[in-house]
């Protein structure tokens, strides 16, 4: 059996904002078809790393290739091959859902007829009505509906690599279940998925592997069950809090509650 080709390869990647080092010499590789959970506490450097790997911001040092293209020398080629759901879920609010998705399709050079067909498939999957997409401005959508449009916009061009930053934010329970099934199906189709989330039980169930970072540095990298077993933590959530100081937060929460009693 031929060795799996790394679709994402990150070497010594760093990002500095003035004097603050947001990402500190991060290195990892992801083969095709893998679902990687990308974890870390607030301010750990997760979003900065994802923004670098999608070409949104330039690294200060280090290198990375995505889908075979160097991030610094061929950013447009990288962008053609990645889909990204940013944490902000930003959309142009004064466009209708259909106008927005057609605009995104045009940016990837997808012919109009093909784009509308794909959009229809996605809205059927997400249980949205075509009328909603054509008649209402995105500003009038609920948070969950807007998130579905953003996910559709990330997958519309059928990218081999997809980055999700808190994709379940705003989705209802049914949509969340459907989404989890979707990314597992996408991975089986050979797509590489990087999944950043704070909902650790979902990560534990969905991901083949987790990468935990803190203060821009790599802390752990491996299959969730193997990591949990190796540290004797019982669950991924327990392991995560032990590594990133979450246990201390539980004590502080108790202190905080005391201020209301006094």
């Amino acid at each position, binding site marked *: 059996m031929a060795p799996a080709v790394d679709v994402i390869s990150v070497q010594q990647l760093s990002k500095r*904002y*003035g*004097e*603050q080092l*947001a990402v500190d010499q991060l290195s990892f590789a992801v083969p095709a078809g893998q679902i990687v959970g990308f974890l870390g506490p607030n301010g750990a450097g997760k979003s900065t790393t994802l*923004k670098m790997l*999608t*070409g*949104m*911001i*330039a690294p200060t040092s280090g290198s990375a290739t995505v889908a075979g293209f160097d991030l610094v020398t061929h950013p*447009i*080629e990288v*962008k*053609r091959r*990645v889909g*990204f759901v*940013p944490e*902000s879920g*930003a*959309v*142009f*609010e*004064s*466009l*209708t859902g259909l*106008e927005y998705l057609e*605009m*995104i*399709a*045009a*940016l*990837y*050079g*997808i*012919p*109009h*007829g*093909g784009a509308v067909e794909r959009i229809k498939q996605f809205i059927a999957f997400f249980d949205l009505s075509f009328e909603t997409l054509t*008649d*209402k*401005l*995105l*500003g*009038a959508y609920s948070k969950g509906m807007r998130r579905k449009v953003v996910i559709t916009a990330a997958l519309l061009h059928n990218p081999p690599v997809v980055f999700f930053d808190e994709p379940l934010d705003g989705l209802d329970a049914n949509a969340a279940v459907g989404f989890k099934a979707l990314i597992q199906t996408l991975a089986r189709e050979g797509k590489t998925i990087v999944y950043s989330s704070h909902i650790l039980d979902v990560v534990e169930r969905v991901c083949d592997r987790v990468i935990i970072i803190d203060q821009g540095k790599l802390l752990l990298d491996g299959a969730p069950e193997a990591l949990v077993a190796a540290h004797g933590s019982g669950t991924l959530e327990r392991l995560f809090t032990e590594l990133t100081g979450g246990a201390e937060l539980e004590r502080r929460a108790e202190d905080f509650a005391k201020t209301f009693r006094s």
Partner: protein
Amino acid sequence: MLTRERENAVPSQSRALRRLFLMLFLRGRSARQLRVAKMPKSIAALLRTSLVVYAFIGVTSLGFGGATIFTLAVYLHAMTFILVGLFVAAAAGEVLFNAEEADILLHRPVNAGALLRAKIFVLLQVSILMAVAFNVLGIGVGVWGQHGSWRFLPAHLLSLTIMALFCAGAIVLTYQLCLRWFGRERLDGLMTTMQVAVSIFLVLGSQLLPQVMARTGNSLGTLVLPWWVRLLPPAWFAGFDDVLTGGGRAESWLLAVIGVVATALILWLAFAKLAGDYERGLQQVGERSARAPRARRRWLDRAVAVPPLSWWLREPASRASFLLTAAYLGRDRDMKLRVYPAVSPMLVWPVLFLLPSRHGGAAAFPVAFAGVYMGLIPLMVLKLVRYSQNWQAADVFHMVPLAGPGELCHGARRAVLLLITAPMLLLFALLVVALRHDLANVALLLPGLIAIPIYAIVPCLGGRSVPCSAPPNSMESSRRGMTMMLVMLLSAVWGGIAIAGWKFGFFGWLVFAQAIVVAVVYAMMRASVARAAWPAETAIG
């Protein structure tokens, strides 16, 4: 068949981007107050009122009927330069470097040059439309005036387009140079300062230029232009008009060549040579700033906690709104760009009236007029502080236990009175004394001063001056122009009444009666503001 071909054709990325930015311009970036059925379909439809106002302002060019083509063209280009420059300078910051847009577009396979070109294309469309609206009557003068020629029509339209390109290129280039020389850390502050300075300069220029022209010549038609005018871009494009219309002297040829070469150079620098800086700037917009800007409000925080401000701002909601308004007036680029250029002509006009003119003129009327006119500063500013790019954050006002927006409006009103109106009035009173050398004239400011509480509370009626609670509205500038005209009319009438009182010896009684009327009306308006419910348009939904 044709439809199927169209369905299967690979779409043009640049066309998609141009369409996107045009839609965003027409509809704005927020949808809360937008109704799908009423969305404007074209720039002309969106700007209809503004274009009528610009065409109306263009009436001033009728005074150049006897002027040479070059003189007429200098005037038209100078005024258009200000109009277009002001628009591009105000819009550029938001259009070129939009933080939210980074999350939507920067991970798509679009290069920065394509984004920049699409944005500038829309800015140019708007600029050219505004320029043509202002120049309609001037073109008529250029065709049918004493030295007119039909060739002025195509010549001037072409020179207007080149001038619009020059303006847009110059603004983009300035941003890129700021990025290159000063980096991201200082970019925000620099952009704000530069935009505010350029906007104020252009606004002041638009008020001062006709006055200067009127004061230096015997009449507008036979004006002899000073030599230094030829160093300014409007003279270059006027040279272009002069050459194409057929009366071109060697000097006009030289000016036209300078205009074309300068435009080409600026466009090359902005869109080719420094396009990489734009890409870097776009990326940096999405980054967190390394150093948070220093908050310079500590003294105000302390001042509101002690008398007399603590007495004036007893209500916590009013105090919070006061501090919010003060912070945005001092720190927020968007707010500063909206407020200070709008306020600057309010200082210039009264000062111009005070200057001795070649016609002589009444000594007292300008002071009375200016006093009333200055009293309208809070009305104008309060109409503006409700707009902010962070308007969605104002939802928090609906979540706190407040019966209505009254106290929030009062806080904003007090901040505007204390931080903008009072310093401007003081400055103006000093100018009256300095220019008129007569303390008695200062009394004529009283009718304006007494009216201030009314003018300041009018925008609060219906709870409509909650700070930072409405999305920026591109129509606001044209409405502001019309409000200014109404304000000037009202000021002239009121100033006339004050002068009559001064002349016929009942000024004291007039002021006394006005004070009583103002007190009664103010009390009624205050009660109305206290009862005001949340305006439907700001309700969360």
